[in-house]
């Protein structure tokens, strides 16, 4: 700090506190709403302080799901979301690691073509090619399956680029040394490269887990069987109940539950999260 200006210090903290408050406000309201009985919302306006029905609301949505919304119990949707997020994370990292490895340390025909084909995927967000992708998945009979739910989201240029970038920085000497020791490419990959990439993998996992968890449109389309519903798409279903008022206390309890896992990941793995976020975008 160069000079000490009290009013500036004060202003700085005021800005930050205000920022935190604005960012947190919607979630506070959701938390409060999830602790009130249903009747609170039917008769007027939203309360701003917690009510006494938290246990009842949360145990209802977790245990039996929302009556009439055709929803599974929420614990099941939470499990589904976790499975989907983990499969996407593991899958993306696995195929990105190996393909980046191939691109950096091997020469093979069409190598540059492959690189560009992967690069192109950056330009095709799911939302844009949604109909034909749906059709492909359907043609393979993969609707309502974990494969159909996750595989189309697994190809990722960003993860491949990140690993490629990182592999380029691995010192030549390491590879030379490995070759002199008679290590083949797979041994080098397993024993040297993977351990070296540990932090990168961890950082990327945090980002990809969140990416997988928040998916909405794709699961909505490919799952028709409630057994595969994820929490994020389940919420939209609860809100849009035909000819009936949304049960806000339950919806907000579900909102809180849907936010919690990825938000906790961000908070407790902040260092990895920041590293992952900033490096994937380079």
């Amino acid at each position: 700090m160069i000079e000490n200006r009290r009013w500036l210090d004060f202003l700085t903290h005021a800005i930050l506190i205000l920022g935190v408050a604005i960012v947190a406000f919607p979630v506070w309201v959701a938390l409060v709403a999830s602790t009130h009985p249903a009747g609170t919302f039917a008769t007027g306006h939203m309360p701003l302080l917690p009510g006494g029905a938290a246990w009842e609301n949360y145990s209802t949505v977790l245990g039996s799901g929302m009556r009439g919304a055709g929803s599974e119990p929420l614990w099941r949707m939470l499990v589904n979301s976790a499975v989907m997020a983990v499969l996407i994370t593991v899958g993306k990292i696995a195929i990105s690691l190996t393909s980046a490895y191939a691109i950096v340390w091997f020469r093979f025909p069409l190598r540059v073509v492959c690189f560009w084909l992967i690069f192109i995927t950056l330009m095709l967000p799911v939302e844009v090619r949604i109909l034909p992708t749906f059709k492909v998945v359907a043609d393979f009979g993969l609707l309502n399956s974990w494969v159909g739910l996750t595989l189309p989201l697994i190809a990722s240029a960003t993860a491949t680029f990140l690993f490629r970038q990182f592999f380029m920085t691995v010192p030549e000497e390491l590879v030379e040394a490995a070759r002199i020791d008679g290590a083949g490419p797979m041994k080098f990959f397993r024993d040297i490269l993977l351990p070296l990439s540990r932090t990168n993998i961890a950082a990327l996992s945090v980002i990809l887990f969140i990416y997988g968890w928040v998916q909405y449109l794709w699961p909505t389309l490919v799952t028709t069987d409630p057994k595969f519903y994820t929490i994020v798409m389940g919420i939209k279903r609860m809100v849009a109940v035909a000819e009936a008022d949304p049960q806000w206390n339950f919806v907000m309890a579900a909102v809180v539950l849907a936010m919690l896992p990825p938000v906790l990941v961000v908070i407790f793995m902040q260092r990895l999260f920041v590293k992952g976020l900033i490096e994937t975008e380079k």
Partner: protein
Amino acid sequence: MQTKRTIFPNKGLPWLLIGPQMIVTAVFFLWPSAQAIWTSFRREDPFGLNTTFVGLSNYARLFESGEWLEAAGRTAVFAVSVTALSMLAALTLALAANRVLRGSRIYTTLLVWPYAVAPVVAGVLWWFLFNPTIGILPLALSALGIDWNHRINGDQAMILIVIAAAWKQVSYDFLFFLAALQSVPKSLIEAAAIDGAGPFRRMRDIVLPLISPTTFFLLIVNINYAMFDTFAIIDATTSGGPAGATNILVYKVYADGFLGLNLGSSSAQSVVLMLIVVALTFVQFRYVERKVQY
């Protein structure tokens, strides 16, 4: 493209290694995109029982009807608003967080978590807050004499989705700005201070130019985000209404294709969108890497 000098001589192994990614890319990215292009030249009934080749007429109707152009204009307004709002807020917060001596980490933690909130959840949250019947914000606004009803008022609906989309994006922009600010050399600032430059002049003449690559990068990322990743926010809040006031391009692709079942037109719109992404990506790689230098 650079490569390592040392390479492994294997012939088959690299194919095995890159195979999975290529297969997934081909099956779920390239093939569907090719199909989208193909469908955009055709007209189909909803059940896919009848199809006819109609040439470019899906595209022609897109640009003739005015509806698509309106949506494009709206998308531009939306993208610019979201980008401006989230980047300004993020920059302000990042400047503040960079300045505090203690507690910077706690503030950061408290500011970054919305990144992890699913867009559709963010939409539901803000929709709840702004709900004309039971929402808390319309109540507060009516005390100020503002009659809030985003069901009818298209501008208010637009404000709603801009706020919801920006709220989610602030954390991301904040992290990048903070990282950029932290890498500004202290010595430069100190030197300027010795020359008598006050905090605001230092910011204008030194800090902002130094972080301009990050700013430009965020500009592109934010526009991309507003154009493509906000689908779920709109679906959860306004569904494109009222009177199409929040029907932005990416939502229109979905609405016309999946709800309206007009597959030909929807595919034509997809193709146009793909071209827009290609252009954006091109700009990003051309300029972020080279042009904006200090």
